[in-house]
């Protein structure tokens, strides 16, 4: 109805008014989310869907806890940040046969050797743990052996993380995730309502589990920056959820008689255009980073791209509909709402 006075017709990613019945599909979406979450958990147990978890379970000596530990040991492709050990790049004058290097590494007295290729065929990265934390000796052994296998190879200066530090980094990372999720629950509870807080936390857990599942299945290196990526995803997903909740709160005030499910549909539709546009601009920036930013931050940006998509989906399909499931006292509703219009 408005006549645009711009020189070009403005693109609209979403029609001016939408009437998607989001709540109607919530059950379907919920099933999909549950299936994806289960798949993620399966991936944790199977080393990214690559091995039979029963093998590790049966082979490991000791009690149930130790056995489960062994099952989940390969959940992620842990970098040295969290696992400790040595990481070192090797560059040769000729293309490197990764299989051969892998075989050589397995004959050495180092634990858990891993060999990874790069974009360039003459460059590899090796990671390993040393026996009894004696990293300097282990580095020497590996360098000697690889020099014999690959003539003319040169090594980068190794990065070393002691087992003590890696343990702390891992604990801190987990603590950060737990702290972030709890803070969000408290914030939403305080700012909105309890069932919204629960809804947003379920959405957050959903995002975190799926992103971890993604990292597990794709075998992207799990490092400190992955924790940064997940926390940013939490921030982003919350941001999206808050925008929907904010509108929901406003609509609850406006339409006191309407049932919740209709209000949720209305609010989600009203904010849909914004949700999509912001998601688009963020994705544009991230895709730019992934393509140009070099391999060092790729593991970070790829996880972020996945997380932004999941976060957008969850704020539409998980957060708002889930708050329907939590029982609420309808009578109290008007008093509970803080009128914060200026």
């Amino acid at each position, binding site marked *: 109805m408005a006549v645009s006075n711009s*020189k070009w017709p403005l693109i609209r990613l979403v029609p001016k008014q939408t009437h998607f019945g989001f709540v109607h599909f919530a059950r379907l979406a919920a099933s999909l989310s549950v299936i994806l979450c289960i798949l993620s958990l399966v991936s944790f147990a199977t080393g990214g869907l690559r091995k039979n978890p029963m093998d590790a379970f049966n082979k490991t000596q000791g009690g149930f806890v130790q056995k489960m530990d062994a099952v989940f040991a390969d959940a992620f492709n842990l970098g040295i940040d969290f696992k400790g050990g040595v990481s070192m790049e090797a560059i040769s004058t000729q293309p490197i046969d990764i299989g051969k290097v892998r075989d050589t590494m397995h004959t050495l007295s180092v634990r858990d050797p891993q060999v990874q290729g790069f974009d360039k065929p003459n460059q590899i990265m090796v990671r390993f743990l040393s026996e009894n934390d004696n990293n300097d000796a282990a580095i020497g052994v590996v360098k000697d052996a690889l020099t014999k296998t690959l003539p003319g190879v040169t090594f980068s*200066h190794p990065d070393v993380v002691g087992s003590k530090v890696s343990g702390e980094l891992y604990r801190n990372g987990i603590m950060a995730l737990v702290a972030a999720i709890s803070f969000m629950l408290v914030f939403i509870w305080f700012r909105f309502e309890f069932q919204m807080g629960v809804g947003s936390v379920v959405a957050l857990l959903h995002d975190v589990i799926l992103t971890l599942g993604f990292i597990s299945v794709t075998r992207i290196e799990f490092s400190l920056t992955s924790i940064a990526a997940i926390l940013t995803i939490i921030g982003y997903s919350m941001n999206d959820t808050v925008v929907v909740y904010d509108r929901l709160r406003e609509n609850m005030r406006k339409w006191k008689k309407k049932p919740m499910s209709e209000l949720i549909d209305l609010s989600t539709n009203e904010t849909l255009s914004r949700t999509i546009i912001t998601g688009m601009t963020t994705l544009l920036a991230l895709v730019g980073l992934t393509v140009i930013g070099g391999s060092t931050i790729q593991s970070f940006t790829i996880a972020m791209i996945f997380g932004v998509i999941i976060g957008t989906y969850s704020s539409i399909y998980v957060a708002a509909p889930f708050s329907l499931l939590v029982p609420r006292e309808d009578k109290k509703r008007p008093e509970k709402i803080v009128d914060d219009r200026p």
Partner: protein
Amino acid sequence: MLSVSRWRYIAVIIVTLLGIIWAFPNVLSPQMREKIPKFLPHNAINLGLDLQGGSHLLFEVDKDTVYRQRLETVADDISNSLRGIERNSDTKERLPAIAFSGRSVSPDGKSVKVSVNNPQDLAEAQKRIAKLGNPVDGVSGPVSTTDIAQSVNGTEITVSLTEEAKISMTRRAVTQSVEVIRRRIDETGTKEPSITRQGTDRIVVQAPGESDPEKLKKLVGQTAKLTFQMVDSSVSIDEARAGRVPPGEVVLPQDNPSEPFVLVKRRAMVSGENLVDAQPTFDQQRGIPVVSIRFDGTGSRLFGRATTEGVGKRFAIVLDDKVISAPVINEPIAGGNAQISGNFTLESATELSTLLRAGALPAPLKILEQRSVGAELGQDAVNAGAKAGIIALVAVVIFMLLAYGFTFGGFSIIALAVNVILIFAGMGSAGATLTLPGIAGLVLTLGMAVDANVLIYERMREEYAAGRSVALALDAGFSRAVVTIIDAHVTSLLSALILFYFGSGPVRGFAWTLSLGILTSVFTAVLVTQVLIGIWYRQNKPKVLPI
């Protein structure tokens, strides 16, 4: 909102100008930055090690050694005191001796145990041991506490360090270590090293530009405790190694194939603390590199006396429990000048001189973490990051123009530009460090910064579609969107702060950039956009909303 108050205009103009002034040094080269007058900001963003290239080492001070060293002194003092020799006593008068046995530092190095032979002496022994404690510094209040505590079991007294003493000793050891490390690194002329303590017992050493961590590790990680100890030639080394080491003596390894082990007295005749200088020199007669050392007054006296008494005997020069060499004393060495010879190359002689001049570490350092980035790789990362940032910026700008047209899209682009300027200004003036994940944070902020504009514009569209006039739609869209923007940004800020608190190194850089970006984007999206739309409305008095 359309009657924007004057102070908002002023605030936007002032903050933007200040932003430009503070961000300006970032586009200058370091040489040009030097020329900026002192009253203007001249700080630029520091590039993190991952962007600049350099080494990062994390050390832990070996606390147990610090405690053990103190307890060994306490053990010696206990012997003396029980024998009746009082510490720091001017008079030669002796107290009656107390018979005791089994005085030793426990194998775990946590306590000293001693038994008095006669139970009646227990009280007196405890009294004397209590006097041996050192005051604990760093404890406020008039109650003087000592660093040792006793417990009695029958006739056995166990002496251990108090928790306060341990804390204070660790703190002192870390402080001393930081000083020693700084002296050592300064000697080598490494530029701008950063040596900081972390937690209670850790030290982080970062050297930008130094991409060989091995060199740094060797320089920093060596305790460099130098002692001169007499060699005991009365017992054959094979016998000693078979387990018959005379009391008060110890077998130490030597880097010399003809004599791989040397039996020496535990007590040092003189130590590296008494050195005033050490220089690499060349021994003209033998034609080999040596280290020339000079003792201070006390050192000269002690060394002179020991060499006078020990003519014809051998002494060992011991560095970190390894014998460098064990020469025979041909004549008394007075005057405090001496030469250390060993299997030195010119390089290793220079290295040892540096270490000796800088002094010994109070305790060994354990390496916990070691990382390095080559300078070339760092430059690649900066280039890739900059390119990615520009591409992301261009993509977002084009998108906003397409989505909201020249006018409103343009406003959000101006807001975005001010945002970028403010982020750079904030990071530069705070001396913050930009890391590779930090660049990612910056680019991400660009994408998310327009979120606030999107929220405002979408709300305006809605209000307009609901039949409000342009003025009312602008006004309502704005004031309603702001509530949402603040709520939404608080959540992002919360997660960024958590990241800052728990993260370390590059991740912190990311959290820092993200938090700053969130704060500045609230300012630019809300205030800058508001002012721009206010001006535009007053000049054009539009009848239709152009978005």
